[in-house]
C-alpha cells in the first residue's frame, strides 16, 4: 500500500490499467468508446489548464482544435507532409492563434474574455466554410485510407488508442510540472485574487498567457490526432462552439482546477453520452445533451467543486476524523 502513495506510481498504474483495458477489449466498437473517452479526457485536461487553473473561462477552445486539425490535414493533403510533423505543426498553429487571442483579449475580465473566445471560434467557423479552396468548405476534407506510418493512418484501433494515451500522459506530466512550478503558484494566486496577486509582484498577464499557450498547444495536437483518427474533418465538427461547452462541462463535473477532475469527468460523462445516444438518439434527438445540461447545472448548484473535488474533500474530512479519534 505504501507504494501507492507515490504519485508517479499511481499515475503509472492508472495508465497501465488503461493500456491493458485497450488490449483486453479486442473489439473495435469498445476500443472506439475508449478512444473517445481518452480523447475527451485530454481535451478537458487541456482546457482545465486555462479554464481551471488560470480561471479564464474559454468557450472558444474548439478554435484551437479546429486549427490543429486543419493544419495537419491541409499540410498532408496539399503538400504531402507527414502528419507526424503536421500534428506538431497543428499544435504550434494553435499556439500562434492563442498568442493572438492572448494579446487581444487576456486583459478582459471574466465574461468578456469568454465572449470574445466564442466570437473568435465563430469567426473561424465562417472562414473555414468560406475558404473553400483550402478547407474544402462545408463538405470538409477526407484523408485517404492508406495505412502507413508516413501517412499516419493505421489499421488497428489500438495504435490510435496508444496515441491518445501518449497525449494524455504528456498533458498530465505537464500539468503536474506546472502545478509544482512557480507558474502554477502564480496561476492559483491569480485565480483566487487577481489584484492581490498582482500587488505581490505576480505577472498576471504573463501567467495567464502561459496557461493559454500550453492549453492551446495540447488542444491543437489533440485536434490533429483526432482528424487522423476520423480521417475526415469539416467546419461544423471541428469549429462548433458546442464542443467547447462539452469539454468545459466535463471539467466542471469532474472537478475544475485539479489534475484528475477532467479525467474523472470524461470517464463518467462520455460513456454516458455514448450510451444515451445509442439508446435514445433516434427517438429523442438532443436528449443526451439535455441530460448533460441538467448534470452541469446540478453539479454547479450542489457540488461546485465537482465530483472529484467533493470526494477528495470527504476523504480528507474522514482522515482528519480518524486521526482525531486515534489521538484522543
Amino acid at each position, binding site marked *: 500500500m505504501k507504494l501507492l502513495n507515490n504519485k508517479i506510481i499511481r499515475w503509472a498504474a492508472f495508465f497501465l490499467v488503461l493500456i491493458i483495458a485497450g488490449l483486453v477489449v479486442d473489439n473495435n466498437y469498445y476500443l472506439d468508446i475508449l478512444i473517445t473517452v481518452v480523447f475527451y479526457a485530454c481535451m478537458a485536461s487541456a482546457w482545465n489548464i486555462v479554464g481551471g487553473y488560470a480561471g479564464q473561462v474559454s468557450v472558444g477552445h474548439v478554435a484551437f482544435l479546429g486549427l490543429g486539425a486543419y493544419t495537419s490535414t491541409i499540410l498532408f493533403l496539399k503538400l504531402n507532409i507527414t502528419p507526424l510533423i503536421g500534428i506538431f505543426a497543428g499544435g504550434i498553429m494553435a499556439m500562434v492563434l492563442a498568442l493572438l487571442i492572448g494579446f487581444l483579449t487576456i486583459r478582459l475580465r*471574466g465574461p468578456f474574455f469568454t465572449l470574445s473566445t466564442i466570437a473568435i471560434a*465563430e469567426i473561424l467557423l465562417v472562414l473555414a466554410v468560406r475558404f473553400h479552396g483550402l478547407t474544402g468548405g462545408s463538405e470538409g476534407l477526407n484523408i485517404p485510407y492508406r495505412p502507413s506510418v508516413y501517412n499516419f493512418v493505421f489499421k488497428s484501433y489500438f495504435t490510435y488508442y496508444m496515441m491518445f494515451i501518449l497525449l494524455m500522459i504528456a498533458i498530465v506530466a505537464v500539468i503536474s510540472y506546472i502545478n509544482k512550478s512557480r507558474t502554477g503558484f502564480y496561476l492559483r494566486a491569480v485565480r483566487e485574487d487577481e489584484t492581490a496577486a498582482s500587488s505581490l509582484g505576480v505577472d498576471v498577464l504573463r501567467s495567464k498567457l502561459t496557461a493559454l499557450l500550453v492549453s492551446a498547444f495540447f488542444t491543437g495536437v489533440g485536434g490533429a490526432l483526432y482528424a487522423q483518427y476520423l480521417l475526415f474533418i469539416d467546419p461544423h465538427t471541428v469549429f462548433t462552439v458546442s464542443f467547447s461547452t462539452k469539454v468545459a462541462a466535463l471539467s466542471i463535473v469532474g472537478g*475544475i482546477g485539479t489534475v484528475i477532475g477532467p479525467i474523472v469527468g470524461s470517464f463518467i460523462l462520455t460513456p454516458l453520452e455514448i450510451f444515451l445516444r445509442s439508446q435514445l438518439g433516434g427517438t429523442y434527438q*438532443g436528449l443526451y445533451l439535455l441530460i448533460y445540461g441538467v448534470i452541469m447545472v446540478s453539479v454547479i448548484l450542489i457540488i461546485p467543486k465537482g465530483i472529484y473535488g467533493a470526494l477528495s474533500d470527504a476523504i480528507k474530512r474522514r482522515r482528519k476524523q480518524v486521526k482525531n479519534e486515534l489521538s484522543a
Partner: protein
Amino acid sequence: MLLQLIISGILLGGVYALTSMGLSLVFGVSKIVNFAHGDFVVIGMYSALSIFYVTGLVPYISWIIVIPISFGVGYLAYQLMKRTIGEDVNQIFITIGLSMIIQNLILMLYKSDYRAMKSLFDSSIKLGNVYISYESLLAFGIAVLVTIGFLWFLNKTDTGRAMRAVSQDKSAASLMGVKVEKISVLAFGLGISMAGLAGCLLLTMYAAYPTAGGVYNLLAWVIVVLGGLGQVGGALAAAFIIGICETLTGFYIGPDFRQVVYYLFFIAILIIKPQGLFSGIKLHKKVKDEVTE
C-alpha cells in the same frame, strides 16, 4: 439600394434593441452574467409559434401572452441562478448549462426543422425607391412602443428608480430601503420578457430553430458592450448600428459574413474602447473597471 439597406437595418435594429436592453437590465440590476439570453429569445419565438398553432393568433397579438410566459420562465431561471450571483465563473457555466437545457428541450419538442410564419401581407409599402415590408414596420413599431414604455418606467416610476439605484450600488440602495432581492427578480423577469417579446417579433421575419439562441446571445452581448455596459440609451443606438451593419454586410459581402463583421467589431470595441462607443460624453470610470481589470 444603400438607402433601402439602411432602412431595413434600422427596422431590424429596433427589435435587436429590445433583446439587448433586456440583457443590459439582467446584467446591470440582477448582476447575472447571462449566457442564455439568446435562448430566452428563442423561447419567445417558439411560444409565439405554439400560440399560433393552437389558437391561430399572430405574433402581433400574441406578444401580449408571450410577455407573461417569458416573465414566468425568467422567474424560474432566477430562482435557479440566484445562488451563483457574484461568482462569475459558476454563473457563466450555469447559464451555459441552462442554454444547453433550453436548446435541447426545444429540439426534442419541435425537432430541428426551421419553422417560419407565413407572411400575413402580400404587398409592401413603397416609398420612392425604398420598399418596406409591413412585417418589419409593425415589429419596429411595437419594439419602439415597448422601449418608450420601458424608458418611462425606468426614469419616472419608483420601481424604475429603485432598479437604477440597485444597478449603481447594491448596498447603498439596500440602506435606502430598496428591497434589493425583489428588485433583482423583477429586473430579471422584465429582461427575459423583453427577450421573449423580441423573439415573438423576430418570428415574423426570421425562421425559428432550436440552436438560434447562440446567435442571438452573442448579438445581444455585442450590442450591450458596444453601447456601453448599463447604458440603455447607448444600447439603443448600438442596436441600430448593428442592424445596419448586418444588412450591409449581408448584401455586399454575403449573408454568412454578417456575424463575422459584428464579432470583429465586438472584439475591437472591447480592446480599444471597453467603455462602449458613446461613453465620451459622460465617462463612468466604474464601467471601464468592470470590463478590464
